């Protein structure tokens, strides 16, 4: 009989699942049924854009809510919460924005499947802020073939800003390569005789970083860069790499690592009494998630490039520009930690999309959405440091191509120098 009992439990579970699915579909609006196979044909024949009705714009994304990159789930949650507020305030030009955010577990094949689901089954107008270099690479060709905007992908790989080859794909954050070039130029100017050691993650991110440094240093690269070490994301720490780099006798250290490993590096460098000039990727420039775990005293003097503010920085606690951010997170995403850089990121990127959709007015064809995304001028979001603006054009698919350098003082990152253009 106990098998029967368990069967009942499972059946109840499945019914529950089905019920929820139904609910979700209802919330998604009524256009889903017809738009399934209509797809891109409708857009090209001048008919209504899939997912767009008089009262709604339906968009989709894939985010790793589970699996090894689940720390980035916060970005998806922040995106959804941002548009919740937009909708509560009446939407954009009278239309509510429905963002369907699905879990791809950081797997490229799954991202392909879910992106097709969003486009063909849910009938979304476009894809917004899907996360991961590999995952976006996997869907890029499909979306471009179908002429569906792949807007503001959540990765800093170098390849997104390529309008001649992929006119339907656009990045958002500064590319890792541009950022690395900024550091190279800074070093060439400030410390031309540096002995440089580099730690990088053995994936797209680290590789783009190295490429940017090579480009920035030019023929000086071989002379200046004494040693490089890589790590895998399966490594528990980077202690061994740091010991090897220290042994090479470098006076300058470039830290192209993701948060956990950047923290590991900072701590180990402090522990062994190494005192290099330390430049760290902005990916890891978070006081809460990196500096505090590593030990703030070990991080004094670290230089990074900033394009969005670090909300965990006590110095910006009373920044009036962040007041709106804080109010939003308190009301619409109370489960998120306001000091999480990923939440700031989600807020900023969603605000950029809201701007694009506002600019679109009533012409929500996919062509016009892409055209407006490539038509942002001097758009400043409050979560960016003073002087940093978003600019795009039909030939410039890099919304952010400016940064400001900042130095860690022991409490927060303090901006110094002028706004630097990456290209």
């Amino acid at each position: 009989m106990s098998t029967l009992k368990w069967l009942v439990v499972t059946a109840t579970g499945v019914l529950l699942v089905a019920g929820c699915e139904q609910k979700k579909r209802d919330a998604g609006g009524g256009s889903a049924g017809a738009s399934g196979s209509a797809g891109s044909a409708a857009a090209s024949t001048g008919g209504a854009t899939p997912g767009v009705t008089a009262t709604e714009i339906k968009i989709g994304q894939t985010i790793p809510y589970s699996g090894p990159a689940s720390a980035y789930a916060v970005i998806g949650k922040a995106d959804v919460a941002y548009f919740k507020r937009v909708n509560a305030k009446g939407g954009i030009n009278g239309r509510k924005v429905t963002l369907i955010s699905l879990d791809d577990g950081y797997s490229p094949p799954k991202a392909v499947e879910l992106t097709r689901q969003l486009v063909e089954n849910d009938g979304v107008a476009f894809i917004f802020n899907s996360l991961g270099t590999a995952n976006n690479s996997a869907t890029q060709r499909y979306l471009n073939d179908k002429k569906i905007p792949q807007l503001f992908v959540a990765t800093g790989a170098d390849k997104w800003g390529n309008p001649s080859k992929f006119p339907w794909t656009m990045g958002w954050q500064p590319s890792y390569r541009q950022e690395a070039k900024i550091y190279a130029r800074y070093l060439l100017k400030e410390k031309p005789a540096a002995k440089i050691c580099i730690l990088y993650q053995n994936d797209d991110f680290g590789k783009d970083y190295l490429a940017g440094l090579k480009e920035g240093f030019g023929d000086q690269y071989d002379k200046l860069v004494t040693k490089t070490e890589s790590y895998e994301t399966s490594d528990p720490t980077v202690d061994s790499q740091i010991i090897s780099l220290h042994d090479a006798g470098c006076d300058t250290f470039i830290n192209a690592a993701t948060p956990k490993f950047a923290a590991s590096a900072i701590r180990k460098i402090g522990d062994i009494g190494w005192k290099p000039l330390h430049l760290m990727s902005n990916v890891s420039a978070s006081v809460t998630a990196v500096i505090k775990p590593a030990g703030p005293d070990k991080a004094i003097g670290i230089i990074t490039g900033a394009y969005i503010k670090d909300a965990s920085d006590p110095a910006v606690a009373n920044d009036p520009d962040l007041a709106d951010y804080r109010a939003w997170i308190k009301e619409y995403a109370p489960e998120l930690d306001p000091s999480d850089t990923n939440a700031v990121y989600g807020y900023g990127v969603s605000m950029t999309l809201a701007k694009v959709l506002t600019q679109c007015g009533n012409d929500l064809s996919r062509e016009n959405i892409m055209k407006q995304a490539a038509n942002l001028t001097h758009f400043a979001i409050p979560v960016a440091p003073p002087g940093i603006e978003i600019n795009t054009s039909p030939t410039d698919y890099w919304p952010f191509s400016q940064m400001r350098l900042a130095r860690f003082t022991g409490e927060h990152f303090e901006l110094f120098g002028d706004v630097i253009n990456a290209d």
Partner: protein
Amino acid sequence: MTMQTLLHQLLSGFAMGAIYASVALALVMIFKATHQVNFAQGELAVCSTYVAASLITAGVPYWIAFALTVVISFVAGVVIERAVMRQFRHASVLTQVIVFVGFLILFNSLTGWVFGTMTRPFPSPFADNAWYGSRYLSPHEIGLIGVTLVVLAIVFVFFRYTRLGLTMRAAAENPASSRLVGIRVGWMLALGWGLASTLGAVAGVMAAPRLFLEPNMMSGVLLYGFAAALLGGIDNPWGAPIGGFIVGVLENVAGAYLVGSQLKLPLALFVIILVLVLRPSGLFGRTVVVRV
């Protein structure tokens, strides 16, 4: 490449090995008590560590929080066995493996949901500038090695000399005969789970200041913990931790001197598979003789 650097790499690997050893020890504990390999061990340890972190954040002094975490983890382990694993006592090994996989996915997702996914600091009980620290090993690393060795000794004595430890081994080896001599086999299994989850908690709490607390903290470590247990013999409470120390040192030396960081994990695993092929039950494992 100086002698000092080599020494530094060896010691650093040894400290990392202490973490692998403590995870391997938890794996051994559950294996000896239930003859199962717990793939969810790492995720359970992370859960325990979050409990400790929450207590410490709430203002509970470190060692009291530590003790509370140990108790909570023990109870949680017993509850998991009594409530869920018991259902699978007579299931095939494969079914049990899948149940562990289910736990792994469940707990990984649960910690992210309940505690958030952002990396958090976790305090060390060993003062940052203690006299026993040096350039080669930080005070926490020395403390960590010490704690691991103490736990190792306790587990060894437990299985070798205490009545309870012997009873547990008997219950796992031969449940039918154990029942005949009056051992409550069911409770012994639950006890094994409780103790394993306690060891996991200690491993997590000791590792967290070095690895930083986030839901995937132990995923890399668990892999090396498995390697360690394989190398030393998963039924051997002192062999497996020694395997941990060997893996830690091997990893560093291979990465720094032999094949570079990109290939250190493949090399370490290759060596382990080689050892296994030559000695299928691990360096210190017991060879099982099967009778037809």
